[in-house]
């Protein structure tokens, strides 16, 4: 791991790393799940070590998604994600780093980038 590149200095921006996973034929077995955990734990530890940690969570499977729309005052509740895409949003991290380059370094270390994609979105700072 190249933690030196992540080290913060100067300006701080928050970015959300959205982890998109490729379609899977079946749910991972508990053993497969457990086997993948050390890589995620190491990734989280790296983020914390660089004082970049803000928040993170895995999302429950896309089968559990519920979508709400209000149109002409009527609330419509539907089953499933808002858009049917092949890759699905599986979780997120929010990191606090000095620039996009630091966020890219973090995303590149994320285990989710190996089989899926990590989308980086800056959080808008509303000022205070």
């Amino acid at each position, binding site marked *: 791991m*190249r933690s030196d590149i992540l080290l913060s200095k100067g300006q*701080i921006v928050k970015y959300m790393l959205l982890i998109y996973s490729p379609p899977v034929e079946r749910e991972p077995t508990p053993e497969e799940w457990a086997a993948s955990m050390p890589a995620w734990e190491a990734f989280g530890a790296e983020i914390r070590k660089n004082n970049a940690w803000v928040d993170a969570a895995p999302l429950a499977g896309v089968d559990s998604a519920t979508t709400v729309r209000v149109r002409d005052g009527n609330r419509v509740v539907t089953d499933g994600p808002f858009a049917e895409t092949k890759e699905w949003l599986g979780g997120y991290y929010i990191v606090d780093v000095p620039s*996009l*380059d630091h966020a890219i370094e973090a995303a590149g270390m994320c285990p989710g980038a190996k089989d899926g994609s990590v989308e980086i979105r*800056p959080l*808008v700072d509303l*000022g205070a």
Partner: protein
Amino acid sequence: MSIWAPDTAEQVARCFREDAGRTVATLSRALGDIELAEDALQEAYLAALERWPRDGFPAQPSAWILATARNRAIDRLRRERVGREKLQRLAALEIPAPPADDASEEDAVNAVSDDRLGLIFACCHPALRVEARIALTLRTLAGLTVEEIADAFLVPHATMAQRLVRVKRKIRESAIPFDVPPAARLPERLDDVCAVLYLIFNEGYAASSGDRLVRRELCDEAIRLGRVLASLMPQEPEVMGLLALMLYADSRREARVAPDGSLITLPDQDRSAWNGAKIAEANDLLGRAMRHRMPGPYQIQAAIAFAHAKAASAQDVDWAGIAELYGHLERMTPSPIVSLNRAVATGFARGPAAGLAALDALPHDALADYHPYHVARADALSRLGRPADAAESYRSAIAFTQNAAERSHLRTKLRALDE
């Protein structure tokens, strides 16, 4: 009206020509926002036009402009209620100190030249679309107008203006840094920068479309930016290689287009029309680059161009050496087109039979609609005394050529087979 008035405008204009690029880089870096930097700088030059005639010409014009632009930017950010952190960063922005008595003003300005390098890396950032990198580099670093850039890429002016607004916004919102990347990332990021400069150059070099004058300007700007990059990163052999490569190509610019607009291939060009000064500069750069013993694709392509440039006539070209260089290039950046060039060079070095064998070994499917591939086959087949096969290849070449002048050139060759 002050007695200053007549030459103040000229002084401000001179200051602008000499410093604007560096000052906009310094401000962009401090603000993280190119658009705000450009606006603030413009306001500062307008203020100079108003105040210098009244208050006198400042001892440090560049520092005066930078300080004024910084203050304008701070005012704007306060009005927009931007976070305190950004304001503090801007307030802390170092204005070049007045030079000591024995130092020239140039030293003070050179102190901020690193910011220009950071701006180059921001404009060529991989998180931006390639066409946006090119447009932004031409606008921000080369100082071309939106209209000039739009015309060069045959895009409506409004479209190009929109593209520039969007890319500057992305840089600001996602906090793309205006820094030289850390050593671990420098090679790939420098590749991106070189690629943008070379794309700009090639866009200007392509004789197939657009206004000739605008195209000439693109080549000149790519070379000028290449010189800036080489001066800011003097230890990077690939930057020297890229600059040499562009200079070699540019040295042949006048000799490569016939009056009817068709391209003249290297062996048929009038070598006396090549620009000797540019070749000499390129030779010097390539020599310095190679002393680093860190070969790369640009240096190798420049070395191939050097092999052509040093030959006294088309007959004296060291084709065996060129084939070997293409072999190196093929291993570094594999592509069917590089392989084709290696096969063609092999044909010139070792005869048409060897050339055809090398062509036969290429991936046919990847090159099937690339007309130079069929031209190369036609040439080898005709030299081997197989006119019927050569004619078939010429017909394929004609079918895949868009350029009208090129097509008529190939038809002439096809007819010559019957004679």
